[in-house]
Structures are given as structure tokens and as C-alpha cells.
């Protein structure tokens, strides 16, 4: 089953919905960078990842990923509050930003992908972790900068009936 959207089309939707969410809800402009495709997120020494899952004819996930300082700035802009460190409010704000971006992506892509349902967000904050997809499926990644800070939006889509190999490691590993 061939994805009915090209990587460039997916990246274009990511850019449009991310710019809309940040300008409308946070009151800031973001600058998108070039799209990349890869299977493993670069190791992260410290940071936040907020995931939202898709289900339907196509399944997968979308996420926002950034370091703690960027998370504090994004959360602070959304809530009009200054945050010195990542706390529950910042994590909740990042989850909601992911929810809005991925939710709007889902609606914009629906004409090609059909109706999709979303999971509630999952937010991870920690040190020395890396993330990977089941079966080495690829993420389409668009980096952004915003007021000197950076973050990435990632989308992974596979057919909803894709056969999965059993007994492969799950998506998050903590390095020893």
C-alpha cells in the first residue's frame, strides 16, 4: 500500500499547521527548515518528546521534540507564564501543542488518507534517551526555530494493516 502523500506534501502540511498553531495560540512566528527522513531520532541528552498516535487506514504517530529550555519557552508562550525549568505545566503545554499540530495535520491530510482517529498525547521528559519506530519505519522531520530556540515536528505513517514483526524492542530506550 503506497502512501498517497509524498514526503514533500507531508512536510508542507507540517509547516502550515505548525505555523498556524504557533502564530494563533502562542503569538509567535516560526521559521521552518528543510525536511529530512530517518528511522532513529538522534540521541538526546536532555529533552521533551510529546507524541500523538494515529489510527485508521493509516497508523503511526506525530511528535514534537525539543530540549528543556525550548520546552519552557514554548510552554511559557502558550500559558503566558515564565518557566525556569520543565515542570508539569510545561509538559502539559507541550502535549497540547502536539495535540493541536498533529490534530490539524490529520484533518489537512484526511482528503488523501481518509478519516483518522487520534490518541491522547504522551509526553516524555528525561535525560540520555533515544526513540525509534517499530520495524524501522521512517519519520518525516521538519525542524523549526522560534525566538532563538529550536524544535522538530515528526510524522510517521504506515498502512493500518501493516504486519508487524513480533518481539522487536519498543519505541523508547534508556541508554545505560
Amino acid at each position, binding site marked *: 500500500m503506497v502512501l498517497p502523500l509524498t514526503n514533500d506534501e507531508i512536510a508542507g502540511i507540517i509547516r502550515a499547521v505548525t505555523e*498556524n*498553531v504557533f502564530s*494563533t*495560540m502562542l503569538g509567535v512566528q516560526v521559521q521552518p527548515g528543510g525536511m529530512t527522513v530517518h528511522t532513529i531520532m538522534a540521541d538526546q541528552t536532555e529533552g521533551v518528546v510529546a507524541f500523538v498516535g494515529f489510527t485508521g487506514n493509516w497508523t503511526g504517530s506525530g511528535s514534537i521534540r525539543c530540549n528543556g529550555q525550548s520546552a519552557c519557552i514554548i*510552554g511559557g508562550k*502558550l*500559558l*503566558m507564564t515564565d518557566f525556569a525549568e520543565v515542570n*508539569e*505545566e510545561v509538559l*502539559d*503545554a507541550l*502535549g*497540547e501543542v502536539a*495535540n*493541536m499540530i498533529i*490534530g*490539524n495535520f490529520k*484533518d489537512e491530510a*484526511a482528503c488523501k488518507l481518509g*478519516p483518522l482517529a*487520534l490518541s*491522547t498525547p504522551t509526553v516524555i521528559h528525561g535525560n540520555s534517551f533515544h526513540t525509534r519506530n517499530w520495524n524501522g519505519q521512517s519519520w518525516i522531520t521538519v525542524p523549526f526555530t522560534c525566538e532563538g530556540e529550536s524544535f522538530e515536528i515528526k510524522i510517521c505513517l504506515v498502512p493500518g494493516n501493516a504486519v508487524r514483526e513480533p518481539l522487536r524492542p519498543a519505541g523508547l530506550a534508556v541508554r545505560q
Partner: protein
Amino acid sequence: MALDVLIVDDSAAIRKILLRVLAQTELTIGQIFEAGDGVEALKALEAQKVGLVLSDINMPNMDGLQLLTSVRARPEWNDIPVIMITTEGSQAKVLEAVQMGAQGYVRKPFTAEQIKEKISACLGQPTH
């Protein structure tokens, strides 16, 4: 007469933003109650009837459309205006919510003005 409001969203961030928007209106706001899902919302309504409900759709335990069904099924709550505020922007969802009795529908991301305008239209009085 002061307007009591129930805000239903599993995101504390969105509840905080909506509290701020309500504070910016010229409405006389009484008590504001918060709930993290439809189950908590029904408990809040059992304890205190409100004049307006602002509710998300995608929530754990009981989603916003299930909450709306429960509210419309109770004669004593049937007149409460309910505005859905959600990332669900498909026409099918909007239509479903309106057919189930939602008075308004706002898609996230939203501006404060969009929320105020929708509240104003629901209540039939200016909010700003």
C-alpha cells in the same frame, strides 16, 4: 445574574487559557468549574448546574460527544449551552456535534476573539 461556567478538557493548559479568556470578557462570571473528562464533568454538573459548558471532544474515560449526549438526555440540563472546543475539525465531527445539540464549535488553535464571539452568539449577549 452571574454566569457559572464549566470548562472540560484533559489539558490543564487549555483550561488555563480558557479561564484567561473568560476573565477578558465583559460577562459577569460567577463560579468557574473545571473537569478533566466527561465523567468529572457530569459529577460537577450534579453538584452545581451551570449556565455554559465549554468542552473538548477527545478526552479519556468519557469524551466530549458522550458528555453532550448525557447532558442533552437530562431535562434539567437540556437548556445548558454547550460549546465544543477541539482539534477535531472534520465536517463530519462538526455536524455530529451540532446534531447532538452543541450550540457552538471552535477548532483549536483558536484566538480569544473566536471564543468570545462564540460565547456571545450562544448566550445572545455581547462579551466584549
